């Protein structure tokens, strides 16, 4: 149900019944290694190209989610997924393997929440019984496309972010009262915001206003106060973007506490890992949400959370042609299903 200007309220509260999260070697050394279902020791993952490894990450995450949800792939109606590579081939090729009707999405690093919002919408209105949604990225494959060859000795400035290697997939089903699963309650779709920043090594700074815009729109549309959520987590703003977004939000009049406002890109790695400003990539918010954050939700650490995945909609071509970096953010609210009675 449309609420306000750009938000959906999911009255039927679709459930996330199972998730599958895969990661690479760098993530295995990170802070959240225990929240991954499958970690690869090698970036190649036994494949002959990074792009194929990228596909494998997503395929394995999908299999994991299906297995945990005890669902056969033939039962799944739709797959909403995407990644960062040209023409999202890794995701499309994984969809070929899975033989599930498929919507390919591109929202850069915001793909995870774009997918979750759409899946929840479809399930909420009985459009499907089982929907898979997810996003993935592979460090070497993405670096190769967006920056320099992985072995090139270019110096990354401290504002740069580290593209994570990983895939996060969720299985969304209609609500069954009493079942202890996380449910999505609402979503806000963001508009493209461009503040004229051009530095591709400072994505966080470019994406922060998009995140802020979407968060403000969410609270306006849902007529809520920030204290309603005990966690508002952004996708991959990194240190720079996160600080900027925090200041912008407080200036706008939304009263947020620092503890309540976190960032997936800052959660995933240890401080001593050489990731400069934090993690990024389509897989970043997907792996952290579907792994760590949902586990915390189930444990009761958090009651309600708003996940705001941010994406920088640039291509190597566009920034070479001196275009600025347009950005987008989508928000989905998640909480635990009410207990029976």
């Amino acid at each position, binding site marked *: 149900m449309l609420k306000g200007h750009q938000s959906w309220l999911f009255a039927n509260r679709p459930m996330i019944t199972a998730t599958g999260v895969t990661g690479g070697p760098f993530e295995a050394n990170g802070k959240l290694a225990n929240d991954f279902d499958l970690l690869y020791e090698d*970036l190649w993952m036994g494949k002959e190209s990074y792009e194929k490894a990228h596909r494998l990450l997503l395929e394995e995450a999908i299999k994991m989610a299906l297995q945990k949800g005890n669902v056969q792939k033939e039962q799944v109606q739709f797959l909403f997924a995407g990644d960062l590579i040209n023409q999202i081939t890794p995701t499309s090729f994984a969809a070929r393997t899975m033989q599930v009707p498929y919507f390919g999405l591109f929202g850069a690093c915001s793909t995870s929440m774009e997918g979750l919002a759409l899946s929840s919408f479809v399930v909420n209105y009985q459009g499907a019984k089982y929907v898979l949604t997810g996003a993935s990225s592979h460090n070497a494959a993405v670096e190769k496309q967006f920056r320099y060859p*992985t072995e090139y000795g270019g110096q990354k400035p401290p504002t740069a972010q580290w593209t994570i290697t990983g895939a996060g997939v969720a299985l969304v089903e209609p609500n069954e009262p009493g079942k202890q699963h996380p449910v999505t309650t609402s979503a806000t779709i963001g508009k493209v915001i461009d503040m004229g920043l051009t530095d591709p090594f400072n994505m966080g700074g470019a994406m922060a206003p998009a995140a802020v815009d979407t968060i403000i729109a969410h609270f306006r549309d849902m007529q809520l106060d920030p204290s309603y959520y005990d966690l508002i987590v952004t996708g991959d703003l990194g240190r720079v973007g996160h600080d900027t977004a925090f200041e912008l939000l407080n200036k706008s009049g939304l009263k947020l506490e620092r503890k309540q406002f976190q960032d997936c890109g800052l959660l995933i790695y240890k401080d001593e890992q050489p990731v400069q400003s934090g993690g990024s990539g389509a897989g970043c918010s997907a792996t952290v949400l579907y792994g760590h954050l949902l586990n915390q939700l189930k444990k009761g650490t958090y009651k309600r959370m708003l996940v705001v995945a941010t994406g920088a909609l640039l291509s190597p071509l566009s920034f070479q042609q001196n275009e600025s970096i347009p950005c987008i953010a989508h928000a989905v609210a998640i909480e635990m299903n009410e207990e029976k009675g």
Partner: protein
Amino acid sequence: MLAMFFWAFVIGGLICVIGQLLFDVAKLTPGHTLSLLVVIGAILDGFGLYEPLMDFAGAGATIPITSFGNSLVHGAMQDAQAHGIIGVLTGMFQVTSSGISAAIIFGFIGALIFKPKG
């Protein structure tokens, strides 16, 4: 000879500091920085300033990419002296060929035996 090592270190280091300033202060990409340094090397040789620097600092001046511009001009000038103006075109790579051919050959060998580690 020990003085040579010392000055190679200092001059080579200083040229790299110029590069670093172009990275960090002028915010140029590595591609822009290296292209600029090559052009500077060519111009310095045009004024006859690079050769003395090479005498003085040895590898400190021949190893940085600026020497690439220098030796391109050198090759062109050598041929120009021998064959007139057309030599500018034909002599260009006479002195520099080793760096480029080494990069091509080792690049290909590298592609044959190595995989990117990520």
